[in-house]
């Protein structure tokens, strides 16, 4: 069960430590069911922290998003730890970052929040539109209770949870320094039904499906920027020489961009679904990522973001890897 007091106390204690730079958690947003990442630097700021079905953001992104600005000569970089609140999926991002040496274990304090599933904001806003003031929600016996200006509304999880949560295999953080409350039961067993469904269509239908989606892409790069695994200092897809993908917006470049993005995440995507959540034009990016996750799992029995000691998929092979596709 979510224990907000425990969470706040832990946060206060954590940020009081000398070796902690700040703690990243969630706080209520400016309107409706929005939630915003909350950077806690002083103990009193911990008061605003929340943990609820609205806490969709995967904060692990911020571990690798920090800009490393040039330091004046002689000045030492702030090497204190960052404390991070994580749900199950978020924790896998941290583990995968460790596998890829994107972060150092000693530079992060992982505070685990076992999670009963977060909402799909689009579904919720459809049910409860036009809320200019902030509104909250909580878990309650398999349902989600929304606190609305005209009283509480209880909705079955199935109606409002994000798709990734309905088939979640890892609701509990897989690696923590502190687990805030008891673990929750694993909900789903992911069979990748959504992927199988699309695979069953004809190539022509699949092309049309994706053409429709990709042509709406505005190349805002939010999918890439929000991704906790996309942390190259200089993304190849931004580069002009060589220009792998042109900046121009058309179906060819957009498709190439999305293929490259998805491919670069093969064996690395931990399926937090952030890319799809943030896409302003609703491209079902998880359908791309999960296709590769499915193949990686089936072909190479590999699931990213679980074992910090494991070798990255993209830099390993087995001599007996399947090769039925080779002429």
């Amino acid at each position: 069960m979510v224990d907000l007091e425990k969470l706040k106390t832990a946060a206060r204690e954590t940020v009081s430590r000398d070796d902690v730079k700040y703690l990243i958690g969630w706080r209520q947003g400016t309107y409706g069911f929005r939630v915003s990442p909350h950077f806690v630097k002083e103990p009193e700021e911990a008061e605003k922290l929340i943990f609820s079905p609205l806490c969709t953001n995967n904060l692990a992104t911020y571990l690798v998003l920090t800009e490393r600005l040039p330091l004046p000569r002689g000045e030492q970089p702030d090497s204190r730890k960052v404390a991070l609140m994580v749900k199950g999926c978020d924790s896998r991002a941290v583990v995968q970052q460790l596998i890829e040496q994107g972060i150092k274990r000693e530079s992060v304090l992982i505070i685990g929040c076992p999670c009963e599933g977060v909402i799909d904001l689009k579904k919720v806003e459809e049910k409860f539109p036009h809320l200019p003031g902030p509104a909250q929600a909580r878990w309650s016996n398999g349902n989600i209770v929304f606190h609305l200006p005209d009283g509480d509304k209880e909705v079955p999880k199935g109606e409002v949870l994000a798709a990734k949560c309905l088939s979640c295999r890892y609701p509990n953080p897989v690696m923590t320094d502190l687990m805030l409350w008891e673990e929750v039961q694993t909900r789903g067993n992911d069979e990748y039904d959504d992927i199988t469904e699309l695979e069953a269509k004809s190539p022509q239908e699949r092309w049309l499906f994706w053409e429709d989606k990709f042509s709406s892409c505005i190349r805002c790069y939010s999918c890439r920027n929000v991704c906790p695994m996309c942390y190259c200092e200089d993304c190849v897809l931004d580069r002009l020489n060589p220009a792998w993908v042109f900046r121009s917006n058309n179906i060819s470049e957009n498709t190439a961009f999305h293929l490259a993005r998805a491919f670069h995440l093969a064996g690395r995507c931990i399926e937090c679904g952030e890319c799809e959540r943030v896409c302003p034009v609703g491209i079902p990016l998880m359908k791309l990522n999960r296709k590769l996750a499915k193949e990686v799992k089936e072909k190479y029995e590999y699931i990213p973001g679980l074992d910090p000691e494991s070798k990255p998929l993209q830099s390993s092979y087995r001599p007996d890897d399947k090769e039925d596709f080779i002429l």
Partner: protein
Amino acid sequence: MDTKKLSKDKFGDFMAILSRQKKLYVPQKEGESLRFAPVTAGSQPDLAFPNTTVPPKSVLFPQTETLYQFEQGNTDMSLPGEGEERVLFGVRPCDARAMAIVDSLFSWDVDDPYYLTRREQTTLLGLSCLEPGTNCFCTSVGGGPASTEGLDMLLTDLGEAFLLQTVTEKGEKIIQSVPELLEEATAEDLKAAEKLSQEAAVRIARGIDTDGIPEKLPGLWENPLWKDFSESCLGCGICTFLCPTCHCFDIQDEMEGFEGRRCRMWDSCMFSEYTLHASGHNPRPSRHERTRNRVNHKYSYFVKNFGTIACVGCGRCINLCPVNIDILNILSQVVKEAI
């Protein structure tokens, strides 16, 4: 100018005639998003929206446009063909105001032929905004649900019919081309439209008093608020690409083999490459400088150069920001800090 009434049973004919005269753009679903696209045989206009996902600037100032084509080792270049007359139907007043704001930029010190020609060739038919969205705040920045600035004609949905109010000669021409479909508008019609838009304005729940903000902003250059608000910024281009007034572009040469084209495409001040110098130096090295620039550009620099705030209160940046960076929140903090 002129006011007319178009009965809804004639609406189909009206659109059909428009689409024969010019290339007609209406809001349509593309993927999961709504944007202005040319009417084709199977296309479905979608008018039940507070606003399109992608603003109509995407037609007047396309995300990518070819400036000219060339071949390597050859100094000849070929310019793109002349554009065509088009008409956009269903433009919200805020987005039309945005075009008026962008106009001043593209005809500032040097005329931009690509934009201005296309603007000249385009007629904007607006639709009064009777169901404002959650984060709409046009009334705070000098607009309103029935503002006509930037439009050639405004339509208001009166239930059984549309009220047509022309704003420019281009709008006038449209009316003149379909006399058989229209009837005269009565004083009641005008009053009804007025009432509808006033009611809509009342329903706008969010807002800010922008008085003094342009003057206050320069004094807050080093204020910690920029860091606080941008801490969670992902540095993506949603707020700028989908802003109806953002107009920054980059020019790039795209080569394939020995052929190439020089083209321009939307750029975003939220990207780090935006200000990246060839030397590697970046005067806006982190997200907080970029966030500060975005707000300052809209609420201070543009005001200084063109006398108007470059924000029309459409709410897109608030609606679509993945991490809930809310410009109204920033502005109210600006007001607070300045005191």
